[in-house]
């Protein structure tokens, strides 16, 4: 069959090739020390250096926790949004969207003002006598997770909401009509139908989270260093571009592997097509 509109794909294909695939190719070459004397020394260094592995582990741990919380919250918000009246829905949508439009830097600094030792939250709790000493809410891993969850919840809400909204309501009615309780209906009918969207949202949040840089730098107090910040330091401060490149390749491969696994579990069409 002839495809008359295939020409329209060319600009996009050109952009992706020129601005994405070629630089990525260069990055991969750089991570192997180029063509003249290819070596695996940067990868060996990742395997040998305990501190780099700690940073990888920190990144993985924070992103996993963030993803679980963000998807859970996102599911609740999406559920509410899908089943409430149009006016409340608009209001809730605004509540999700307004912070979504704020810059990541502004949001991190806002959390700092709220959560630091003499911030609004701690001052209020101290004044009411609920706590005797300020709670360590920020400038640590806990603060990083708060900031990241806040940033990433909208990314979880929208794919899940889209699925919930498009769901055929008669499925639930059918379940109720044969005697299933509301909880039973939710677990056996509603949840399985929305599950691919949940995986899709989780994947989206996880992949975004892996690249987080500003939020951990500010809310982590300097002691929570995640992978992308480490890459940035290697490029700009310590000039080890080979190491930065190989870490980026590791990140890329991990992301692709994740995508592959989730698509095997859920099915790539359902993941990308329905969500």
């Amino acid at each position: 069959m002839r495809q008359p509109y295939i020409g329209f794909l060319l600009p996009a294909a050109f952009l992706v090739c020129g601005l994405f695939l070629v630089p990525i190719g260069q990055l991969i070459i750089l991570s192997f020390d180029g063509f003249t004397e290819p070596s695996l020394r940067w990868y060996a260094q990742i395997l040998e250096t305990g501190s780099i592995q700690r940073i990888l582990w920190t990144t993985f741990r924070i992103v996993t926790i963030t993803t679980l919380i963000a998807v859970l919250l996102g599911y609740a918000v999406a559920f509410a949004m899908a089943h409430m009246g149009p006016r409340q829905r608009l209001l809730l949508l605004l509540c999700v969207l307004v912070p979504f439009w704020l810059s990541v830097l502004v949001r991190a600094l806002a959390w700092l003002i709220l959560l630091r030792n003499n911030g609004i939250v701690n001052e209020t709790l101290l004044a009411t006598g609920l706590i005797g000493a300020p709670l360590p809410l920020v400038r640590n891993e806990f603060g990083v997770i708060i900031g990241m969850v806040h940033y990433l919840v909208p990314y979880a809400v929208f794919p899940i909401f889209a699925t919930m909204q498009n769901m055929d309501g008669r499925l639930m009615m059918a379940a109720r009509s044969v005697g299933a309780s509301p909880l039973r209906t939710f677990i056996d009918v509603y949840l399985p139908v929305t599950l691919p969207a949940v995986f899709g949202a989780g994947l989206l949040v996880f992949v975004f989270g892996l690249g987080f840089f500003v939020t951990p730098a500010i809310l982590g107090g300097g002691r929570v260093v995640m992978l992308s910040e480490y890459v940035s330091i290697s490029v700009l401060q310590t000039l080890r571009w080979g190491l930065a490149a190989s870490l980026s390749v590791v990140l890329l491969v991990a992301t692709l592997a994740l995508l592959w696994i989730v698509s095997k579990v859920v099915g790539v069409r359902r993941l990308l097509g329905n969500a």
Partner: protein
Amino acid sequence: MRKHSFQADLAEIAAQEVKAGRLDRRDFLKILAAAGVAPALGAVLGSDPASAQANEIVLANFGGDAINGMSEAWGKPFTADSGIPVRVDGGSPLAGKIKAMVESKSVIWDVCDGDGFLCNQLGNQGLLDEVDYSIVDKSKIREGWAWKHGIANYTYSFVLAYKKELFPDKPPTYADFFDTKKYPGKRSLWKYQMGAMEACLLGDGVARDQLYPADLDRAIAKAKSLGDDVIYWESGAESQQMFLDGEVVMGNIWNTRASILERDTQGKVTWTWNDGLYCPSSFVMPKGHPASNEALQKFLASILEPDRQIKLLSILGNGPTNPAASASLPPELQRLDPGYGDNAKVQAIRSEDWYEKNYDAAVEKWIDGIAG
């Protein structure tokens, strides 16, 4: 040779304009960038833009008040003398960026502000032009700070800043800095090792003149002993904000920020020169810079004039590198200059030699050490 696109054509026209002298190299690069053509293409097109001399000097520094400060203290007087405009670009000329620009032959900066040890470190990699000491007067630079590939342009210190109410009688020492039982509250250190490492070693009992060669593991262990009581600052503004917000009670910060803090808090936050770390900054000239070499050498010579060095101190708080300038300071500036008599005597001097050889590895080890 037939050109294949409008951008390439535009670039070719621009290249011809450069050759004919109607367009300087910098505007040429701008046009190429605007047209989305990599500057390297300019060379492929058969033009050699580097041979065109720019008619201004672009000085790259790290932005903020230093843009206006360096322009006032150094740029304007030089322009008045030579007729060559000096534009200050706050584009943060980190070593990585300089390296990338030189290697891709798309240098847009003529003079870059950076730490003293970068002169040798980048110079030995062949990334910098040499200083011509027949134009720049070596005797106007503190001994040891006139390098082959750059000169010390100003000085700064890492100092111990603190809340005055905690230490009303005498300033704290680094032993107090690490004594969180006696003086509760958070402390701040620079995230990127420098100054912080020395503070840790001093706090661990190392003498001021025995800091180098530095025992980094010992310093990291000391830093970790602070547990949750340390916040690492990233930018100078952040180090200042932590004091203003009451997040920290003591901090190892830059003297320029400390003096602003003292002024803005009416002395509630102050600092001591005791056990500070006295450091030279430098100007380097990346290879392939657009401005003429002679103009740059003359510019470097001009910034060493005592009145211009003192002017910078009065605007930014950065000390002179010309000893004659420090010697002739008016009383109100004497307390601010890290290199002034008594201020310098109680400080350690950063070993440029140690940093040249160890900085990259040290920063990395430090970051790895304090993270997680």
